[in-house]
């Protein structure tokens, strides 16, 4: 990491969720960060030293007063969620993702102190289509693709972010489009999917998978928040792994289904609470989506530590052991976080 200017005051949204919490911990260890303010609807599952938590809804005008009162100069927006079940249904999810981003940016626009806004978007904005380039560059998102759910939310949130960037050209705007995140502790629809004992796939299709390790995702956000670059960047691990090979690496069994059946199966899996694989992401399992990370390497200065294959191996080797967190292997906060994540039933939130 390059030299970080002193006295940064950073606001992290979605601080009670995995990425926000880990980012807060990461920033807390960084010299030159004067204050970390975390905003979320519920309290973080584990206390983070040096984090000032404020219970607030980013989709309410209250957020402007938080930004003003805490003299924030950098905003890291990690609060765009992908899982409707965990966010209280699709309409609540959209409210949170799109309206929340809108309100947050409106508040940021008011504040003269804000000099940097980092938004965690997703490669879902590219959709999944066989006609897409094999390595999708950043400039490819404005094409007309059929988006639904999470991808659409991200695309809309990005539109607001770009509007914001136009109105406040003095603010450095960084949009990070992260690839599907997996890892030993994070829970995403991809980790749910890859944890199934028998993994359903689409018969006759073997997409290339490109993933991102949870630690690399946190590091990318930190680089975005502390560095001095601006722009839109794809963030993903190097290399690809075919889904068929990934399943073999994970010692699981593949269950190829005809495409119409795959739709039904996804619905059934969701109903029984096994995997919430949003139907808009089903195409990912058919066609895959691989992005070019050249720009992030050159202009953002971010290089992921793990390749896609290493990410998968880490997921395999450490996820299993984590089913029962052991006292000697895991620090207390990690075990608490794990218990918390497991205790969270989809319906409860």
């Amino acid at each position, binding site marked *: 990491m390059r030299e970080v200017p002193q006295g940064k005051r950073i606001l992290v949204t979605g601080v009670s969720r995995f990425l926000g919490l880990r980012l807060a911990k990461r920033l807390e260890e960084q010299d030159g960060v004067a204050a970390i303010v975390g905003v979320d609807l519920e309290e973080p599952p584990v206390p983070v030293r040096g984090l000032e938590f404020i219970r607030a809804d980013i989709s309410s005008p209250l957020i402007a007063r938080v930004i003003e009162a805490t003299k924030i100069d950098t905003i890291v927006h990690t609060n765009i969620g992908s899982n409707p079940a965990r966010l209280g249904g699709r309409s609540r999810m959209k409210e949170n993702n799109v309206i929340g981003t809108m309100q947050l940016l409106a508040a940021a626009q008011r504040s003269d102190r804000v000099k940097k806004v980092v938004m965690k978007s997703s490669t879902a904005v590219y959709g999944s*289509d*066989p*006609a*897409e*380039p*094999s*390595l*999708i*560059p950043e400039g*490819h998102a404005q094409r007309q693709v059929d988006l639904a759910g999470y991808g659409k939310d991200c695309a809309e949130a990005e539109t607001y972010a770009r509007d914001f960037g136009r109105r406040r050209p003095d603010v450095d705007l960084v949009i990070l489009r992260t690839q599907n995140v997996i890892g030993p502790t994070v829970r995403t629809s991809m980790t749910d999917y890859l944890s199934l004992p028998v993994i359903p796939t*689409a*018969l*006759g*299709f*073997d*997409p*290339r998978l490109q993933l991102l390790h949870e630690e690399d995702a946190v590091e990318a956000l930190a680089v975005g928040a502390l560095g001095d670059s601006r722009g839109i960047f794809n963030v993903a691990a190097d*290399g*690809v*792994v*075919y889904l068929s*090979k*990934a399943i*073999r*690496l994970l010692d699981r069994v593949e269950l190829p289904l005809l495409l119409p059946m795959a739709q039904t199966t996804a619905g059934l899996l969701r109903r029984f609470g096994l995997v919430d694989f949003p139907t808009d992401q089903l195409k990912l399992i058919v*066609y895959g989506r*691989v992005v*070019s990370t050249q720009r992030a390497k050159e202009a953002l200065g971010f290089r992921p530590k793990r390749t896609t294959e290493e990410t998968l191996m880490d997921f395999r080797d450490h996820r299993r052991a984590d089913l029962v967190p052991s006292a000697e292997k895991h620090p207390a906060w990690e075990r608490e976080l794990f218990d918390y994540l497991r205790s969270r039933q989809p319906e409860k939130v």
Partner: protein
Amino acid sequence: MAEAEIIRLHDHRTKPDADGEAERKRCAATTATGRPCRNFALPDAEYCSIHARGSTAAQRRHPAQGIETPSRPPEPEPTRTVLDGIGDFLRRRLDGAYPVDDFGYDPELHREVLLPLQRALYERYFRVRTLGVDRIPHEGAALLVGNHSGTIPVDAVMVQHAVATEHPRHRTVRNVAADLAFNMPFVGHLARKTGNAVACDEDAHELLRRGEVVGVYPEGYKGVGKGWKDRYKLQRFGRGGFIEVALRTRTPIVPVAIVGAEEAFPMIANAKLLARTFGFPYFPITPTFPLLGPLGLLPLPSRWLIEFGEPIPMDDYPEDAAEDAMLVFDLTDRIRDTIQQMLYRNLSLRGRAFI
């Protein structure tokens, strides 16, 4: 035509080098079928281009196999059968210990499984002859531009086979294919695993930047979907996108003329209504399809001749040449004319189409 030499590696090595001419070293790796690799080793290296990149230890020389060196006594169990080799290969595939590149190219699957399977088609069925295959640059990027014909794009596969087996460096041609191919079950991922990419500027640019040999067929559907009466008449060459990419990356263009694919699958008529129903760009009616059902999909055994022309350098144009639309049109026409001339010449050179 000179057959690929099949020389026992052991006899070859034990003979003293009589003529003093430095022999090109063979690759020291063992193929998945358990035989010593017959490719030439890279200069100053022990392995050929495939095994040097392969990087998995299992692919490298097997302890019980390979060339006997005086320093090491022969292993007690020196006889490994072909079955052992196949076993190793399957184990490696099941364990997932094989690398693929970002585009999904799986060199092991392509070189060890698919090329040998295609060989009968290439050598016996179509009796492909090649001209000037060593005109393709031995290293660095090159853009092969070919005519497209034959309803089912077998021609691209044959060009890839020709370069992989007959070029001195056994380079892999990375063809760019229409997105329809990647939308089809089984065909889609097989196309990726054999090194194909999507026909768009981004993919072609990236492959050339990485120094690959890229194959394009600018006629596209207009080429493969044209009728029998238009055989060997080049259609419009797309919108010149391939020239722009070549100019931007300063890649030499190698014109390729393929004779034989038209007769392999002569299209008498195009059932437009059926095409629209299935969402295909055309629906071919040939003497055998759909009359004989799936059997009609088998191409006719025509005789093929593939010529690789002299590379056309692209690096003596100014930096912003790709922005000059007139220049792009001119170059497109020039390359189209070159290929058309090659086609006419080779049609008479090939002689009879079938027997």
